[in-house]
């Protein structure tokens, strides 16, 4: 019986080796698969990853945070409101149609109908076609981040998405719930075409034979994306050889992966800051700048990075990470328990007080553990925190309702620029303008608002950086929020995969350029 079993298992082993000899096919295990093939149906990291696999933007970010020409070959400023883009010639869509300026304009206009994108493209007036291979992008005000935004301007195949589908619905309809043409059909200019898709099970991509970028070193012919939601199962799938590449990698498994000779771990700095906001209206103590400072001094965020994040995050003391326009190297983390206690005493609160806190438990890496550590750290300055954690499905409603005195939020800037953090997290909350939409601490400083708005329309990049740096300084001095760290992105894959060259701090692995030995 036992011999028989060993024999059978041995046979399976031989067969599974036979399967993996099929080169240049990679299997990728992600925590979730793309929710749709319609890139405008949702603005999320996952959808942008897909956008880079099946479509191409005008320009894209490089690893070094510079711009790389994609569908646009060159660009120049015409005036403060207008930038001219020269488009690449001889580019084919997956359908066989030829890419022209009309597709760029069509795709931009489509974004206006997307609930998710329309806010993002608000600074723009529109796109004017100059000729078949030249477009002008026009903004309402002078706008420094035009190129940053051009990374969102992917080109969809306008002819392919025009007309009616079999349900009598226009093919370009953006539908959140229910069937649509774009949900299951895609035609872009990108390196991969989708050959089959079963939502929640797998998506199969094949390399586009007429892909314009013949200089790309990428040699992946076929790519299968499978969602593996459980962290432990995703890691096990890589270690057992069922998948070739996984992301994200849970920090607790880093050692395990590094010790395995067949796989490797690659991490990359990311731009998502994890913070706590202190509600000044619910809790009058938080109005006192000394109390807020004391709390920042009490949090050992370097300790959290090394103990809880296992070194896979960068300790933060300001909103934007290094490389962003507003980054100020002088602002350093300031854990100092004695100082924290002194500040509490100064504020007349050495006996402390009690308050509530909420945090999600499945949104950010180790979010619950970070929150628990915070409770212990604040207890040392006699602030007794009653913590409640919950899944993200319930968390955001509570967050919006400002249901607790301290609330956790992580933020990644859409524009890869410092201003975006302040617009959403730190500007005075105002329903009419939409600024401060996620400012649950109700911190409000008119000077910060002025500076942020000034930075929006400042085209001189040096002056603009000064404005942004001043904001970071004010927020630091006033302890407007409690900073923890910027989350790193983590990837792991088989040794023969060229991972490092295709990853970047936006967490868009450019699989089109991946080299498999």
């Amino acid at each position, binding site marked *: 019986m036992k011999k028989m079993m060993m024999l059978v298992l041995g046979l399976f082993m031989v067969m599974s080796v036979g*399967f993996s000899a099929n080169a240049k096919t990679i299997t990728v295990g992600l925590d979730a698969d793309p929710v749709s093939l319609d890139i405008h149906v949702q*603005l999320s990291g996952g959808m942008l990853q897909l956008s880079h696999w099946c479509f191409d933007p005008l320009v894209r970010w490089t690893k070094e945070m510079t711009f790389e020409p994609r569908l646009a070959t060159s660009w120049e400023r015409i005036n403060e409101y207008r930038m001219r883009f020269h488009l690449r010639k001889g580019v084919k869509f997956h359908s066989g149609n030829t890419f022209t300026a009309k597709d760029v304009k069509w795709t931009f206009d489509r974004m206006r109908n997307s*609930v*998710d994108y329309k806010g993002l493209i608000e600074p723009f007036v529109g796109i004017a076609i100059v000729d078949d291979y030249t477009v002008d992008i026009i903004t309402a005000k002078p706008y420094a981040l035009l190129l940053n935004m051009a990374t969102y301007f992917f080109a969809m195949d306008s002819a392919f998405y025009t007309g009616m589908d079999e349900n009598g619905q226009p093919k370009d309809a953006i539908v*959140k719930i229910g069937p649509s043409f774009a949900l299951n059909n895609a035609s872009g200019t990108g390196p991969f075409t989708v050959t089959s898709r079963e939502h929640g099970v797998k998506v199969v991509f094949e390399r586009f034979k007429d892909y314009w970028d013949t200089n790309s070193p990428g040699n992946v012919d076929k790519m299968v994306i499978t969602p593996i939601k459980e962290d432990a199962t995703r890691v096990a799938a890589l270690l057992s050889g*069922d998948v070739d590449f996984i992301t994200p990698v849970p920090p607790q498994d880093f050692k395990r992966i590094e010790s395995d000779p067949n796989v490797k771990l690659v991490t990359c700095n990311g731009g998502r800051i994890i913070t706590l906001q202190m509600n000044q209206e619910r809790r009058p103590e938080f109005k006192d700048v000394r109390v807020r400072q004391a709390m920042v001094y009490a949090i050992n965020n370097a300790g959290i990075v090394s103990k809880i994040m296992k070194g896979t995050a960068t300790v933060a003391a300001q909103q934007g990470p290094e490389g962003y326009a507003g980054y100020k190297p002088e602002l350093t983390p300031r854990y100092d328990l004695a100082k924290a206690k002194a500040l509490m005493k100064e504020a007349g609160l050495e006996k402390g007080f009690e308050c509530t806190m909420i945090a999600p438990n499945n949104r950010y890496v180790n979010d619950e553990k970070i929150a628990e550590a915070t409770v212990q750290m604040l207890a040392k300055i006699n602030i007794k925190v009653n913590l409640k954690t919950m899944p993200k499905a*319930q968390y955001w409603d509570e967050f919006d309702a400002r249901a607790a005195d301290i609330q956790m939020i992580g933020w990644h800037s859409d524009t890869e620029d410092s201003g975006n953090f302040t617009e*959403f997290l730190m500007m005075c909350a105002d329903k009419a303008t939409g600024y401060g939409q996620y400012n649950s601490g109700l911190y409000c400083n008119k000077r910060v608002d002025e500076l942020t708005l000034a930075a929006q329309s400042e085209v001189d990049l040096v002056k603009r950086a000064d404005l942004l740096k001043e904001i970071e300084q004010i927020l630091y001095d006033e302890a407007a929020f409690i900073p923890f760290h910027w989350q790193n992105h983590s990837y792991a894959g088989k040794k023969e995969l060229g991972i490092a060259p295709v990853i970047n701090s936006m967490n868009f692995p450019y699989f089109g350029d991946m080299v498999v030995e």
Partner: protein
Amino acid sequence: MFAFIIRRITQAIFVMLIISMVGFAIKNKIGDPVRDLVGERVTAEERAIIRDRLGLNDSFTAQYVRFLGNVAKGDLGQSFFYKKPALDVIVGKAPATLELVFGAALIIVLVSMPLGVYTALKPRSFMSRFVMGFSTLGVSMPVFLTAIMLIYIFGVNLHWLPSYGRGETVDLFGNGWWQTGFLTTDGLIHLILPCISLASIMLPLFIRLIRSEMMEVLETEYIKYAWAKGLSPMRIWLVHAFKNTLLPVVTVFGVQIGIMFAFTILTETVFQWQGMGYMFLEAVERSDISLLIAYLIVVGSVFVMVNTLVDILYGFINPTVRIAGRK
């Protein structure tokens, strides 16, 4: 008899109404499905518009009445995540779960019978003690732990078996519905670990059940008589004793299979097995409430229908059941 059937069916409908109402009552506690559909930039007002369009802002009764009306037309709603009718999603996921349960049931039958009989016949042998000891361990170990252990031993360390998913599947009926893993080598090796994990919950129970039933039967008069008659041991054990052991075992087996479906939720999650259990847990996390309610209705109605049928059959077989129900 006719009145009895009508009464049973009315009761069944009543139970279904309660199930749907309970489902509806909890749905607002699970979270806002619109959150999962939009990016972080989308404002509260725009989310409210989407909620409005989905009818999520209507009163409980209005939503419930609309839901009942749709159910009467055979429409259980649209899944938010899958963007297609919830019923289609559930029906599409059912084969994976059925195959998992079938595979586990097969393992239980093939392993528990010989071991149960052996431990009954040779209760003092070393092998029997080992099996009994091991089964105590098995019964007290939670299924997700067994599953993770199996993955680490056979998947990660030994590289013998795949650690997740269903592998290669083929279309069984040619219409794309039933994708079976039983007909491909890859599909079969993917079935091994999940089926063993699922079987591990019930296996010890059945070994013990068969053993005790068998031991009881071995003490009966007719077995003693058979020994006295000088029949061969094999004939006594397998034909006379074992056959009579099976009757209660089969009854329990029928009940336990239903319970096994409940355990598929855990097994499927650990192995990322694309079945109904995994779908259910995912739907909770994504607050895909229309899919959740549809799942409750489908599973509830299967149970209610089976029970009602059994009750009605009982009525035919045993008339006293009918009389007892009469006023």
